[in-house]
C-alpha cells in the first residue's frame, strides 16, 4: 500500500512542510520531540488539518488534491484513528461506542479482524455494559482501539495512545497493542515521542523535527544515524534483530542468532526460532583492538567503524557495522584518540547489556 503526500500547514506560531512517498509494507512510526508536528501530520492524513498546496494519495485513493480541488472529508476516508485523549463518547456505554463504529463501518474488512476477534483480542467482553466514563484509562484506550478497528479501516492512525496513561496502565495495554499489531492486516501509522514505545512494533520510521521530516528509514538505520539527536541522548541505543537460537537453563541465558554473530542475553520468554528485537545501549558497548581474554563480558563482536562524531566535550559516539546490524558505542574522546578511531578501522565491540525491546 502506497502513501504519497505533500502539504504545507501554517498557524500563527507554527508551520510545517511534509512530503512523504512510501510503500507501507509494515507499521510506520512517526517520532520526534513534542511540538515537532508529528500529530499535525497524522491529523492531516485523517483530514482533520486543512493545509494548503496539498495532495494525499493512499492505496490508489486520492484523498486530497488541491490542483484539481479534491478534498475527501474525514468521514469518507478509510481510516481508524486512536486519539491521545481517547475521546470515548461519554453519553454511551462501551457497547454503544462500539456500535457507533459498527453501524458506520466500511463494506469490506481490510483489517482481517471481525467483531468477535476484536472483542477477544482486547478482552472487552466484561466491559461491554459499563458506562464509558466508569472505566480506567487503560480500559478506555482498549475500547477506543476496538472502536477504531470496528469501523473497518484500511489504515490505522494512532496518536500517542499511551501518552495520557499512567505507568501501570501503559504496562497493561502494551501486550494488547502487541496482539493487535500481530493480527492486523492493515498498516499502522503510530505517532510517539518515545523511541522505546515504537521500537517493537514499527518497521519503518519517520523522524520529525520542527515541522519537517528530518530522516526516514528502517528502525535500525534511523536509531544509528549520528546526524540525528537520537544518537546523542544519554540513553542512545541501537537495535539488533535476530532469532532465538537456544536457551541455556543452567545459567538462565538465551542465545540470539543475528547477522552480527551469536549474542548471549538474559533469558528471553519466547520459544526458539522467534524473531526478536534487542536494544543495545551505546554506553554499554566498549571497544578494543584485540579480542579480549578473561573478561566478564559475554559478547565480543567483530566490527568495523562506520562513522564517529564528538558527543559533547567528553565523549565520542561511534557507529559500527556488524554484519547487517549497526551498533552504537559511546566512549570517551580520550579513548577514541588512543585507539585512533576512524572510519574503516576493524576492532572488537564488547557488549555488556542487551535488553529485549519493550
Amino acid at each position: 500500500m502506497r502513501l504519497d503526500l505533500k502539504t504545507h500547514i501554517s498557524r500563527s506560531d507554527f508551520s510545517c512542510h511534509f512530503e512523504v512517498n512510501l510503500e507501507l509494507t509494515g507499521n510506520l512510526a512517526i517520532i520526534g520531540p513534542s511540538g515537532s508536528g508529528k500529530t499535525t501530520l497524522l491529523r492531516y492524513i485523517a483530514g482533520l488539518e486543512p493545509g494548503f498546496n496539498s495532495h494525499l494519495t493512499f492505496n490508489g485513493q486520492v484523498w486530497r488534491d488541491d490542483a484539481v480541488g479534491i478534498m475527501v472529508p474525514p468521514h469518507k476516508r478509510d481510516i481508524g484513528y486512536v486519539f491521545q485523549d481517547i475521546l470515548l463518547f461519554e453519553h454511551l456505554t462501551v457497547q454503544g461506542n462500539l456500535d457507533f463504529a459498527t453501524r458506520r463501518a466500511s463494506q469490506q474488512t481490510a483489517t482481517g479482524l471481525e467483531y468477535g476477534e476484536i472483542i477477544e483480542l482486547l478482552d472487552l467482553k466484561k466491559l461491554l455494559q459499563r458506562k464509558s466514563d466508569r472505566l480506567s484509562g487503560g480500559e478506555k484506550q482498549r475500547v477506543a482501539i476496538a472502536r477504531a478497528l470496528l469501523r473497518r479501516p484500511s489504515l490505522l492512525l494512532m496518536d500517542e495512545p499511551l501518552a495520557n496513561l499512567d505507568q501501570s496502565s501503559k504496562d497493561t495495554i502494551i501486550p494488547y497493542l502487541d496482539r493487535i499489531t500481530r493480527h492486523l492486516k492493515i498498516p499502522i501509522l503510530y505517532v510517539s515521542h518515545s523511541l522505546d514505545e515504537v521500537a517493537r512494533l514499527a518497521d519503518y520510521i519517520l523522524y520529525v523535527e520542527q515541522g519537517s521530516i528530518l530522516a526516514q528509514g528502517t528502525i535500525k538505520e534511523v536509531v544509528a544515524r549520528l546526524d540525528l539527536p537520537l544518537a546523542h541522548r544519554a540513553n542512545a541505543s541501537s537495535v539488533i534483530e535476530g532469532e532465538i537460537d537456544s536457551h541455556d537453563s543452567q545459567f538462565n541465558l538465551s542465545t540470539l542468532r543475528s547477522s552480527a554473530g551469536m549474542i548471549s542475553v538474559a533469558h528471553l520468554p519466547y520459544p526458539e526460532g522467534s524473531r526478536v528485537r534487542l536494544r543495545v545501549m551505546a554506553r554499554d558497548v566498549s571497544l578494543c583492538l584485540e579480542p579480549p581474554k578473561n573478561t566478564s563480558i559475554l559478547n565480543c563482536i567483530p566490527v568495523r567503524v562506520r562513522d564517529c562524531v564528538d558527543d559533547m566535550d567528553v565523549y565520542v559516539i561511534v557507529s559500527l557495522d556488524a554484519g547487517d546490524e549497526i551498533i552504537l558505542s559511546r566512549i570517551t574522546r580520550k579513548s577514541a584518540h588512543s585507539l585512533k578511531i576512524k572510519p574503516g578501522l576493524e576492532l572488537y565491540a564488547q557488549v555488556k547489556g542487551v535488553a529485549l525491546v519493550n
Partner: protein
Amino acid sequence: MMTNLALGYDDLLAFWVTIKLALVTTFILIFLGTPLAWWLAKKNSWYRTLIEALVAMPLVLPPTVLGFYLLVAFSPQGPVGQAVEALGLAPLAFTFAGLVVGSVIYSTPFVVQPLLNTFQHIGRKPLEAAATLGASPIDRFFSIVLPMAKRGFITALTLGFAHTLGEFGVVLMIGGNIPGETQVLSIAIYSHVEALEYSRAHLLSAMLILFSLLLLLMLYRNNGSAQVMPDEA
C-alpha cells in the same frame, strides 16, 4: 371578601394566554436558537461578535425600549407593518401573534446562551472522533451533539419558558390588555393593583411565584449541582 378570592374568568384567560405564549415562544426559540447557537460556537470573526452582542441586547435593554421600537415597526407605517399588510396578513400590534414576535426577541438570550455554552463545552474533539468513525456532519449533530447537549437544551427550554412567563414591559407596549388575546398574568396583576383589587393580585402573584419556583426546582434537579447558566468551559 371570600368571593373575591376565587379566580375570575378573566384571570383564567390570562393564565391560559400566558402559558400559550410561553409555550409557543419556547418552541419557536428552540428551532431558531439551536442553529444560531451552533453557528456562534463554530464561527470566529468580527460579525460573529456583533451577532453575539445583538443576541445579548435584551439582557441589558429596558423591555420598554424593545417594546417601543416593536410598536413603531408594527404600525401600519412601520417596516414590519407594511410587510405584513403586503402579505395580506392581520396587523401584529395588539395581537397574540405580535406578542409572540416580541417574546421571541425578548427571550432569545435565555435560550441561545445556555446552548452556546453547551456547544462550546462539547468542543470539536468528540466531533472529530465521530468523523473518523464515518459520521457525516449531520449524523454527528444528531448522534453526538444533541445527546451530549441534553442538559443545555433542558436549561434553555426552562429558562426560555420561565422568562416569557414573567414578561411585562414588552407586552405592555405592544400587546395592551385585551382579555383572551394579549392579557397575560403580569398585566392582569398590574390591572388588579390599579383597580385596588389586592386580594386577586395576591392570588395571581402567589400562583406565578409557585409555578416559577416549581419550574426552577425541576431545572436544578435535572442539572444536579450545575448552575443555571453553565460556566465558560
